[in-house]
């Protein structure tokens, strides 16, 4: 996991390496300064040599300035490296998602993918920055300060031999125990936020049923749980500070006692003693930093795991090698096709489907919610792979095409369709980047969208806003149809794409399809019988199987489900 993720540091490797190296420079200066100071006291002040005091003092000034430069450089390097790393990680994730098939996207859900690309990347980025800044700083400081202390007086350094393990163990204990407690807290916290979210979206339900007090009671229970979990988790973490203080203070007292005795006996210089106290601070601070680093790491691990899940996901549909076939026409046939969204033969969405559709035919598909109408057509542009059997488009198995070629030939207007921020024209050009203005207008006329577009003050340059919020449902559907038409495909699939369009417009769209796209194989999934009534053939789907296939008149005679749907919609219309 770490290898995959950290390989994304990429071209910022130089900075990622330089950041700790420069920090080592800073640390070396920092640990040398107390040493120089002890020299000033012992050899300068005590001997009364002002020139020595001034000389060494200036050396210290130079060292601190040098250290400042190192520190600043390292700050810069780590910022460049961490932000660059985040950039690469985001790009990698985004590219990966673009490679995903529909079933990959379904598996993660769009909301969770968004979080992984935003919040999780930020978490990892912050942890990484902290890591390259302190992962070297802390241990090197620890080691070099200890070495310095030993150099000055090995016997006195024995104190650290006790202090470091004690503090280390305590910190380790706290960090490892705190982790599950924090996880628990976050879970409570998520639960609480979910409740708020639900109350926001469902406020009308809450008010309509007069459940304000009920919700308040539930929420109070939630917040109390959060509070308790927080106390439970944080009461461990707040031990850090006092424990650290006790150990540092104990060290200082011990060093002063033993050191004082040595000094009186003439075995230790006063300056050395005071530099020792400086080292106490440095050594124990670096231990503290290590424990913080560990906490950060633990927090970011969940995020890393979630990013890794995306990065390591294999796209379930990939281009075949040397795919050079192209569709010769718009014929489609299903041979014994079964399909499950989960690849589970016991939970089939489609069961043993056999179909032969000639190029240029118009096929209507009808059936209740959950009868797998959409599942059927989604196999044609290979949005999903059939679990069993073969789907043949234009004379070749869909698996033989490169996805790009196949999807260029098969245009699909999805049920849950999306327009993007930008102008109408920009959105339509998704269908064909090089479409001329004339082609765009023509497609819009066919989709009965031209008139309402021209009614906007800015016509085709009208800005749609995020998610196409500035147009009504019916208008959106017609824009989506025009967008698909611009592809000039061999096969076009409308998955319930005119549900919000009135029947008159619906029928003129179909008329345009009949006249202009007679060569194009057309699939129309609809709820309304009137939308499919005049198709060459109508497929009636029921529970993943084809219940009937034929023209309107044939089905009225032979298919009970079809007749039932027809009756439920036509009741009274002929009265």
């Amino acid at each position, binding site marked *: 996991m770490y290898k995959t993720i950290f390989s994304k540091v990429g071209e910022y490797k130089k900075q990622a390496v330089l950041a700790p190296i420069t920090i080592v420079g800073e640390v070396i200066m*920092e640990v040398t300064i107390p040493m120089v100071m002890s020299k000033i006291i012992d050899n300068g*002040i005590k001997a009364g*040599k*002002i020139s020595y*005091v*001034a000389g060494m*003092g200036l050396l*210290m*000034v130079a060292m*601190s300035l040098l*250290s400042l430069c190192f*520190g*600043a450089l390292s700050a810069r390097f780590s910022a*460049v490296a961490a932000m660059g790393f985040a*950039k690469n990680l985001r*790009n990698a994730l*985004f590219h990966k998602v673009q490679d995903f098939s*529909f079933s990959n996207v379904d598996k993660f859900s769009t909301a969770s993918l968004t979080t992984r*690309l*935003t919040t999780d990347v930020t978490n990892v980025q912050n942890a990484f*920055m902290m890591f390259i800044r302190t992962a070297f700083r802390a241990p090197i400081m620890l080691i070099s300060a200890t070495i310095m202390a030993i150099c000055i007086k090995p016997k006195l350094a024995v104190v650290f031999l006790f202090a470091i393990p004690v503090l280390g163990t305590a910190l380790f204990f706290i960090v490892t125990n705190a982790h599950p407690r924090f996880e628990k807290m976050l879970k409570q916290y998520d639960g609480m936020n*979910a*409740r708020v979210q639900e*109350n*926001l*979206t*469902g406020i*009308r339900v*809450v008010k309509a*049923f*007069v459940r*304000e007090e009920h*919700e*308040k009671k539930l*929420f109070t229970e939630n*917040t109390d749980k*959060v*509070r308790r979990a927080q106390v439970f988790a944080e*009461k461990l973490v*707040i*031990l850090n*500070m*006092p424990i650290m*203080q*006790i150990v540092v203070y*104990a060290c200082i007292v011990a060093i002063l006692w033993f050191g004082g005795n040595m000094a*009186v006996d003439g075995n230790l210089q006063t300056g050395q003693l*005071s530099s020792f106290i400086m080292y106490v601070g440095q050594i124990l601070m670096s231990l503290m930093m290590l424990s913080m680093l560990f906490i950060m790491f633990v927090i970011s691990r969940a995020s890393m795991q979630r990013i890794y899940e995306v990065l390591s996901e294999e796209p379930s549909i990939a281009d075949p090698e040397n795919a050079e076939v192209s569709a010769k026409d718009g014929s489609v046939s299903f041979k014994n096709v079964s399909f499950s969204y989960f690849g589970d033969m016991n939970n089939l969405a489609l069961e043993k489907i056999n179909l032969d559709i000639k190029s240029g035919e118009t096929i209507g598909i009808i059936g*209740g*919610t959950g009868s797998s109408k959409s599942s059927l057509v989604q196999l044609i542009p290979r949005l999903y792979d059939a679990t069993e059997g073969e789907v043949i488009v234009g004379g070749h198995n869909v698996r033989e095409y490169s996805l790009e070629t196949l*999807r260029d030939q098969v245009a699909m207007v999805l049920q*849950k369709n*999306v327009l993007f*921020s930008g102008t109408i024209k920009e959105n339509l050009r998704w269908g064909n980047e090089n479409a001329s203005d004339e082609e765009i207008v023509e497609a819009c006329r066919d989709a009965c969208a031209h008139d309402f577009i021209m009614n906007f003050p800015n016509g085709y340059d009208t800005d749609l806003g995020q998610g196409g919020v500035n147009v009504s449902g019916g*208008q959106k559907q017609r824009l989506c149809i025009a967008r698909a038409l611009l*592809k000039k495909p061999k096969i076009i699939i409308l998955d319930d794409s005119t549900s919000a369009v009135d*029947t*008159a*417009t619906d029928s003129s769209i179909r008329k345009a399809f009949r006249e202009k796209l007679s060569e194009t194989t057309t699939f129309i999934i609809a709820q309304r019988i009137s939308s499919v009534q005049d198709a060459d053939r109508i497929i009636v789907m029921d529970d993943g199987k084809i219940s009937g296939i034929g023209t309107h008149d044939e089905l009225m005679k032979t298919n009970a489900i079809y007749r039932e749907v027809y009756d439920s*919609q036509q009741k009274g219309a002929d009265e």
Partner: protein
Amino acid sequence: MPPRNAHPGAKPEQTFGTLKRIFSYMYGFKVQLILVVIGIVLSAGAGIAGNYLLKPLIDNIEESLTLGKWDKNGFIGILTVMGAIYLLGALSSLFYQRMMLKISTETLMRIRNDLFSKMESLPIRYFDKHTHGELMSLYTNDTDAIREMLSNSVAQFISSAITIVGVFTAMVIYSWQLTIIVVVMLFIIVKVIGSISSRSGKGFIAQQKAIGAVNGYIEEMIDGQKVVKVFNHEAKTCEEFAKLNGELCEAATRANTFANILMPIMNNLSYLHYAVTAIAGGIMTVKGIGGMTIGTVVSYLQFTRQFSQPITQVSQQLNSVLTALAGAERIFKVIDEEPEEDNGYVTLVNAKIAPDGTITESAERTGRWAWRHPHKADGTVTYTEVKGKVEFDEVVFGYEPDKTVLNGISLYAKSGQKIAFVGSTGAGKTTITNLINRFYDVPDGKIRYDGININKIKKDDLRRSQSIVLQDTHLFTGTVMDNIRYGKLDATDEEVYAAAKLANADSFISHLENGYDTMLTSDGANLSQGQRQLLAIARAAVADPPVLILDEATSSIDTRTESLIEKGMDSLMEGRTVFVIAHRLSTVRNSHAIMVLEQGKIIERGNHDELIAQHGKYYQLYTGMFELS
């Protein structure tokens, strides 16, 4: 889509007032707060006192070297005092942190509860004007910021202030001459921090903007991922993303460089200070200026290190405190909002109705309801049976004062009738139902409910007498059972099953993994839209009210299923006054009266046959000559 960055400004407007208000939430913790402050003082004081005692200790050693005789007892004495002070310091810091944790979590809980409680009482109008993202971030970002402030910053600020003052005092006591250097350093430090923070501040604003752009793009593209694929647009999208991402990287690098640089600069300025002090102190000791001793120098050097730490801490915390205060201000603004107005005094009571029609109030559930109507003038109380008769008299209404949505609507629904509204989006169908349950109040015209002006009826009681099934179904985290029971909290299991059967939801529920005990999460994400609507219908059914409002309640149910539940729906509607809004005209055919709305006016009314015979708008709609958008 709520905006990602729902934070208009990061700066608080009223620092002091807001701070005071946060502290007002700590009621009941006065003694503990005083103890916390004492604890902080002791803990910070211990650090200073310890360094202060270094001087006598070092001087003691130096004296012994010059005099050749060691005052060992004096040495032990000082060291013992030092140890005791240190121990006290560590213990008080343990103590105050523990106490502060209790106070801060409790305070936070109170703020959350207050906020939620206010939110529940706000009028629907408020939710129209504010995005969910905006309100949600009060619970996440803003309370998080307050939490951070309460549990870290407050104590650290006090502790830092005490340390700075204490150390400075000690420094002045030991040598006023060396303190001049301190003042100069302090001046430099403040300058440096100021210039770096303003740069990093600007950088972070730019970064925030870039993050907004990147996140917006991610959200949009991931949401439309399937469309991207269908159009082979992957490469192009990646390219655009890389561009935005590159801009973010640049802005973020700039912002973080400045933020990162602060630490090493502060740290090393402190070493610089240390070095300068060592030179000056050394020279003074050698020359014997100001009675300087080696002990003073050692103590003083420790002080210079101790001095810079709190300054760095405060400068780091300052940003988070400002964020917290700005967040608190936003929270308090919501808490200060006016709650839904309710001057109603007519209440809903259980009633016993005698054969002669006299109504008496009953303490237990009788299955029949009455309006208890006290008359202020003569102090008498009258009872009216709840029947669900609704009358609109020239009702004019607009969501905004200058834009009316309903222009003089008059209608009369007898109890037990089914009334349908038909018309395009924006014609005012949903608005009418929103007025019946007083989601919004009417400025002009009158709405009467069982003959009583609805403004006189207590809102809660009015709503309790009605059930509503909305176009957008909202379910809550909990089991299927809990969700249906939402309509009537004390419904028995049998009542729930019956309601589910009525709504034709029973069959799909029993196919769920755990049947009625299946957990629904994130608004019932594991159910289809149609199934969710069936649950919403069941929820309304279990409430068993005299009035039922169905706002596109069956829009996501296919016609075949709809015809299956038609019987259930019919029995659900039986004996109730029902208002139906439906896109699909087959749903409204059997209504007693159909109102065709256009631009806030009723343009046609009558039953299905009458309207068809009129050959007007309804006829056009019904025969599909017109588009309902």
